[in-house]
């Protein structure tokens, strides 16, 4: 604590600004832009990966290899991934198996979506 008092934490400030910018761009893409839906999704995904990278490298010590007894950051990240896998795969498993509503055909999906919105008037 004491020795970091004087230094300006450039890394953190840059990381903070970067994550703000990426968040704003993502929000803009979703709310304001008129890009095709597929591009919006791809763009947001890409931003999400970058965002995670910024967090990990600029704030969360992934670069520090070991603390005391073992590679703690990687260890915890592994658990995080395992949980994320359960959440995502588990949701897909329970929410899509055995139901018979038609989400299968990707072609019509986009149109379908737009139609819905018009009908319901939201």
């Amino acid at each position, binding site marked *: *604590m004491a020795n970091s008092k004087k230094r300006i934490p450039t890394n953190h400030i840059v990381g903070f600004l970067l994550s703000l910018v990426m968040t704003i761009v993502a929000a803009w893409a979703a709310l304001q832009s008129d890009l095709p839906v597929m591009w919006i999704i791809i763009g947001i995904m890409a931003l999400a990966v970058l965002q995670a990278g910024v967090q990990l490298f600029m704030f969360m010590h992934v670069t520090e290899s070991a603390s005391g007894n073992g590679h703690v950051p990687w260890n915890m990240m592994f658990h995080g991934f395992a*949980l994320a896998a*359960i959440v995502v795969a588990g*949701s897909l498993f329970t929410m899509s198996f*055995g139901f018979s509503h038609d989400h299968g055909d990707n072609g019509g999906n986009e149109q379908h979506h737009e139609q819905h919105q018009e009908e319901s008037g939201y």
Partner: protein
Amino acid sequence: MNIKALLVDGDPLIYGAMVSIGLVTVAILFLLTYFKKWGWLWREWLTTVDHKKIGIMYILSALVMLFRGGMDAMMMRVQLAFPDLGFLDSQHYNEIFTTHGTIMIIFMAMPFLIGLMNIIVPLQIGARDFAFPYLNALSFWAFFMGAMLFNISFVIGGSPDAGWTSYTPLSGAAMSPGPGQNFYLMGLQLSGIGTLATGINLMVTILKMRAPGMKLFHMPIFTWSTLVTSFIIVFAFPILTIALALLTIDRIFGSQFFTLTGEGLPMMWANLFWMWGHPEVYIVILPAFGIFSEVIATFAKKRLFGYSAMVWSMIIIALLSFLVWVHHFFTMGAGAFVNSVFSVSTMLIAVPTGVKIFNWLATLYKSKIEFSVAMLWALAFIPSFILGGVTGVMLGMAAADFQFHNSYFLIAHFHYVLIAGTVFACFAGLVYWYPKMFGHKMNERIGKWAFWFFVIGFHVCFFPQYFLGLDGMPRRLFITNVVEWLPLNVISTVGAFGMGIGFAIFVYNVYYSYRHSERETTGDSWNGNGRTLEWATTTPVPYYNFATVPHVDEIDPYVRMKKEGKTTFDEPNVKPIHMPSYTGRPFIMMAFLGLASFGLVFEWIWLAIVGLIGGIIFMILRTYDYDEGYYVSVEEIKRTERKARGL
């Protein structure tokens, strides 16, 4: 919006509640002023970062919440036993079962256990505080503000009424307009942040701050259960946080995550909720298992049978608890394969649980049992909990669950596990560690009265509900004047009042013991039968806990320390102790975030922004906080210890 539109009106019960809340508030303010206690309150409690005091505040709040949730329960029981009386209307009934469930799980069971962990875990591992004392205070105030926010809902704005599970689309903006559901979302969000922070805090504390020599497999079993629970918290709570946030955005800002219109997926809420919700029930049962293990070992005067089997079964339960959530919505419409997978994983949980039951029995086997009040709670737990577990396995059979689901059979099941498990454990733990916290024991004679009233009341209340369920009585129903159901409902209500009396006696016992109990002279309160480090400290525990931290290289280290005449005051080796300073900032920061949440509840965005800015300012202040605490001098430690030990 003017005040009249804000306050809930139209019901004499609520007017009564308003008047009594008003009177109690005035009385508290008056007493604090009259006895000039404001400074004391601020200096000793609102600004404290001492884990023992924070723990006491958790437990006090939890007892108040138990009272509130208990009043809700009695009102429901009156309605169900006398359905023709018109005691509650349907809206009021819906609000009451919602607040009852939410308060009992989120604001009673968890804080009670977290309170005990706060006080006991650092003492058990030979630490002087939590790893992050400031964060610990922050967690408490987050919980407290969340709980208060949730609790004012019934007089201001109206309570949530979509059940503690808050299923969409019912809980969405279209079908539940108004602030009610927002109270649920913001109250849980705020206190959830606190819980998550506590999970991290305890994890670090246990992993990094153990006494020298103490390996993980030397830790007392309650500390183990806390560690495992912290992992569940850290992995499960983010799911709740996200689900709550999505629903909040749905309700306040008009997005369509869980709506029926606009391609929303209402069932995704149930899915996410139970991905958190099932681990949550293990968050409240594993610490309970830990408490019972401690109590049973102490009063059977033996080392816990099968220590490592106990630890491993907890770890396995924790892993499995993330793989069973679908058993809460077998009837949602997923295919037979999905249901079968989760049916099997659900039943698997019964295996490690069974291992634990047999280990407790084996600990008791051929031991000289001392039937103290804490032990009575533990002994009552075993058979009662088995009834809950066995019916759980019945519910876990997907095909059968189509019959049981959402009937009183389910209600009986989870009350058998939650009350006989968690609530009995809270009482057992409080009685057991009471001398450590307050310097005197709870009166045993009165404690036994409370115990018998509560336990008998519990079985009279909930056992008939299994049969009500089998007779087809659904849960969350307020008109029950079906002839076949009436007798059992009346019996059940009688039992509920028995529990109420038991609780009242318990609370009276707090007062009675404060006035009349003998003050403790040794730290090892239970006839010298303490086995773990918390009993090695003096009573009352000095604020720095341990003058010198002993070297530990076995389970139950205090047993040997006593034989060898060692204490936690190794006079020649006393060194200055580094302690954190008290600070009022956690309280103020969370008050601001509480204000922001209140703003969001009523969708007054300007107020939310004001609160949020206040919170952020305090976070920024925290980053410039270079207060590194202070040192307790060797002379002071020696003086304190000599006095406490009568040297």
